[in-house]
C-alpha cells in the first residue's frame, strides 16, 4: 500500500507540473459548452470559436462542442460553476440573453460575478419588422399608431415575456407611452415561426435579430422598420435607419461571447484572452464571423467583464421599469 500512495502522489506531482506548463502553451484538449440544442445561437457561438481557432492553428485538435440544454443556458452556467470551476480547457457560450436572465434571477442563485467573463466575439442587433404589405413604413409610423390603438397590434417574438424579443417590443411600447405589460405579446418558438406568423397576418409587428431577418427583408417578404444599433449596419441593411435616427433612442445589442469557470487561474485566463485577441485580427475569423451573420464586436478580457456587468445592471433596471 505505501508504494501505491507514493505512486499516486508522484503522479499528482507530475500532473501539477504538466498543468503548469500547459498554461503557457495551448491546452491539449479544448471544449466548448453550448447551453442549448444543436443549431441554436449557443451552438453557432461555439462553432465560431471552434472553427476559427482550428483554422488559424491556435489549437491543434478540433475543439469539442458539448450540448447542455436547459433553461436557455442556466444549466450550463450552474454546471460550470459547481462542477468545472477550475477547468481551463473549457469555454462556455453566452449572449446578452444570458445577461438578461441573470438580471432577472433566472440563472439560479448565481449572479454575473460567479464566472470569469472572457470575450465577446461578435454581435447581432435587435430589429422591429412588419409584413411587406403593412401600411406601417417606419418605426415612427409604428410608434405613432401604437400610441393611438395599441390593441390593433399583436406583437410576436421568439421568446417568452421578459426575453430579449419581448424587451425590444417593450422599449417600443414605452416610446409610444404605453405600458409594456399590456402589450398583446405572442410568444412564438424561434425566428422562423415569427416570420410565418407575420406573413400569415396572425401578428402585425415582430421583434427579432437582424441576422435572422435580413434574408426575408431582401426577398421582399417583410420590412425591417429600424435596426436597434448605435450606427447603421453595413451590407444589405445599410439603407435601414437606426431607431435613433427616427427619433426613438433605443438600442439592443445581442452580443455573443464566452465565459470560463470562476477558479480558472490568471495564467490560463490570460492564454485565452491573448489567443482571442490574436484570433480576432485574422481574416479567417472575419470570414467565419460573417458567414454566421454576426457583426464585428470584439470586447476581450476586463473590458468584456465590465460590459457584461453593466448590461446586467441595465437589464435589472429595465425589467423593474417594465413591471416584471
Amino acid at each position, binding site marked *: 500500500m505505501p508504494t501505491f500512495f507514493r505512486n499516486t502522489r508522484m503522479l499528482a506531482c507530475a500532473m501539477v507540473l504538466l498543468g503548469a506548463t500547459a498554461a503557457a502553451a495551448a491546452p491539449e484538449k479544448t471544449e466548448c459548452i453550448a447551453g442549448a440544442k444543436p443549431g441554436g445561437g449557443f451552438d453557432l457561438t461555439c462553432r465560431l470559436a471552434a472553427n476559427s481557432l482550428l483554422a488559424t492553428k491556435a489549437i491543434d485538435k478540433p475543439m469539442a462542442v458539448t*450540448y447542455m440544454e436547459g433553461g436557455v443556458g442556466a*444549466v450550463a452556467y450552474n454546471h460550470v460553476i459547481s462542477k468545472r470551476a477550475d477547468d481551463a480547457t473549457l469555454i462556455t457560450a453566452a449572449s446578452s440573453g444570458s445577461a438578461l436572465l441573470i438580471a432577472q434571477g433566472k440563472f439560479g442563485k448565481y449572479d454575473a460575478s460567479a464566472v470569469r467573463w472572457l470575450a465577446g466575439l461578435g454581435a447581432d442587433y435587435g430589429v422591429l419588422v412588419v409584413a411587406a404589405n403593412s401600411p406601417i413604413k417606419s418605426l415612427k409610423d409604428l410608434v405613432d399608431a401604437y400610441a393611438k390603438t395599441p390593441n390593433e397590434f399583436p406583437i410576436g417574438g421568439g421568446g417568452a415575456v421578459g426575453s430579449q424579443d419581448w424587451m425590444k417590443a417593450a422599449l417600443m411600447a414605452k416610446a409610444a407611452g404605453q405600458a409594456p405589460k399590456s402589450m398583446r405579446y405572442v410568444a412564438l418558438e424561434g425566428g422562423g415561426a415569427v416570420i410565418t406568423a407575420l406573413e400569415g397576418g396572425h401578428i402585425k409587428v415582430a421583434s427579432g435579430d437582424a441576422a435572422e431577418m435580413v434574408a426575408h427583408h431582401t426577398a421582399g417578404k417583410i420590412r425591417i422598420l429600424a435596426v436597434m444599433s448605435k450606427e447603421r449596419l453595413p451590407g444589405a441593411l445599410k439603407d435601414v435607419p437606426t431607431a435613433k435616427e427616427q427619433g426613438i433612442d433605443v438600442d439592443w445589442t445581442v452580443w455573443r461571447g464566452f465565459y470560463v469557470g470562476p477558479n480558472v487561474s490568471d495564467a490560463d485566463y490570460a492564454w485565452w484572452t491573448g489567443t482571442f485577441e490574436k484570433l480576432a485580427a485574422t481574416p479567417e475569423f472575419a470570414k467565419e464571423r460573417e458567414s454566421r451573420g454576426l457583426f464585428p464586436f470584439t470586447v476581450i478580457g476586463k473590458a468584456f467583464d465590465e460590459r457584461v456587468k453593466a448590461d446586467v445592471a441595465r437589464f435589472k433596471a429595465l425589467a423593474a421599469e417594465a413591471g416584471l
Partner: protein
Amino acid sequence: MNLDYLWHGFAVALTPMNLLIGFVGAFLGTLIGALPAIGPINGIALLLPIAYTMGLPPESTMILLAGIYCGAEYGGRISSILLNVPGDAGAVMTALDGHPLAKQGRAGEALAISGLASFFGGTVGTIGLALFAPALAALAIGFGPAEYFVLMVFAFATLGSMVGSDPVKTLIGCTLGLMLATVGLDPTSGAYRYTFDEPELGDGIEFVVLVIGLFSISEAINILEHQSRGGEILKVVGRSLARLDDIRRCAWTAARSSIIGFVVGVLPGTGASVASAISYMTEKRLNDRDGTFGKGDVRGLAAPEAANNATAAGAFVPMLTLGVPGSGTTAVMLGALMLYNIQPGPQLLTERPEIVGGLVASMFIGNLILLALNLPMVKIFARVLTLPNWILVPSILVLSVVGVYSTHSSILSVLIMLGIGVVGWMLRKLDFEMAPIILGFVLGKVMEVNLRNALAISGGELSILWSSTISQVLWVMALTVAVAPWFLARRMKRLRSVEAKAESAGLPED
C-alpha cells in the same frame, strides 16, 4: 409545372460519389434511428461539422443529411417492434401493433411490412414535396396560433378511438401526460412551473426522457419480472417476407396515412409524433371493426410507419420554400445550408436548383436504398429477439441510460427517466396504456401554447378560435371524427340485429 430542376437533381444525385454518400447516410440514419434516445437531430449535428471539414459540396452534404434523416425514420421502427422500445419520437405508435406481432412470432413479417410502409410513405411524401411544395407553403402560413389550437382539438377528438378497454384509464393517462407537460419554463409568461428551483428542470421533462422511461425502462423491468416468475417469452422470428394478403390490406391505410403524415409535416408546429398518432387513430376509427388494433393488426403497424416517413419529407416544404424549418432536424439542416452561404427561401429554387433538385432526387433514391438495405436485413435485425434475457435487459438499460445521458449530459434526466420507468411499470401492471400519456404530453404542450397565443392576439376574445376558414374546416373535421363512429356503430348494430332477427325468424322453431 416545370420539373426541370428535378431531372437536373437526379443527374446530381446519381453521380457515383453522391450515391455512395447517400448510401452512407441511409445506413448511419438507420442505426441512429434504431438506438433509443439518439434521434436524427443528434446524428445530423454530429456529422455536419465532419462533412463541412471534409469539404463536401453543399448538395452532397444535403444528400448525406437527408439520408440520415430518412434513415432514422426507418430505423426507429426496429426496436419498437422487437423490444417495445421506440427508437425515436415517430415510432411510439409503431410499438402498439408492431410489438404484439413480434410476440405472436411474426417479427420478421412485421419488420418487412413496416419497411414497405416506410418506403411507401417516404415516396409519397417526396412526390408531394416535388410537386406541391410552393402551393403548400401558403397552407403553412395560414396556420396561426388559433388554427394550431383547433388542429390539436382535432387530434384529441381522434384520440377518442384510443379509448379501448377502459376509457377512464385512457383519460387518466392523458391527464398524466398533460400534467407532465406543464413542468418547466412557461413559454408565454416566462415563469418557471414545478421546477423546484432546479435549473435542469427549466426546459421541462424532455420528450425522449419520458418515452424511454415509459417504454424501455418499464419494458426491461417487465421482462425481468416475467423471467423471475419463470415465464418464457416466445422467441420465434417467423418468416421474413410480408404476406401478399397483408400488403393488400395495408395499401389504403398506407395511402391515407402518407397523406396525413405529409400534411402534418408541412405544418411547422407539428412533427412525426403527432402525424403518426393522428394517422394511427384515424385508421383505428375507420377500420377497427373486430377490435384487432393494438393486438397485432398489420394496418396499425403500417399507418404510423407510412405517416412518419411522409412527415420527414413534408417538413422540407416550409424549409425550402419559406426558409422556415418544419422540425428540429430541418432546423439543423437549415443551419447547414447557411454554413455554405445558401439562404433557403422562395428564391432558392430559381437560384440554386441543383440544391433543391439534388435533395428531392436523393430522397427518392435514399428511400430505394433504404428499402434495399432494410428488407434483406430483417433476418439480422430480428435476431435480437433470440437474445437471452440476461443480455437483452442489461443492453436495453445501458442503451437507454447512455442515450439519454449523451443527449443531455445530465444525471438528473437519467434519474427522471428511471423514475418514470418504475412508475410506468406500475401503471402497466394496473392495465394502463402508455400511448395516451405520450399523446397528452405532446399534444397538450402545443395546445396550451397556441391557445394562449391566440388569446393574446385577440385580447381574450374567444371568437378568434373559429373565425378563419381553416379553423372552421378543422372544427367540422373534429366533430365528424368524434361523432361519426358512434353513428356508424349504431347503424351497424341495427343492421346486425335486423339480420339476426331475419335469420332467427327463418329458422324452424323446433
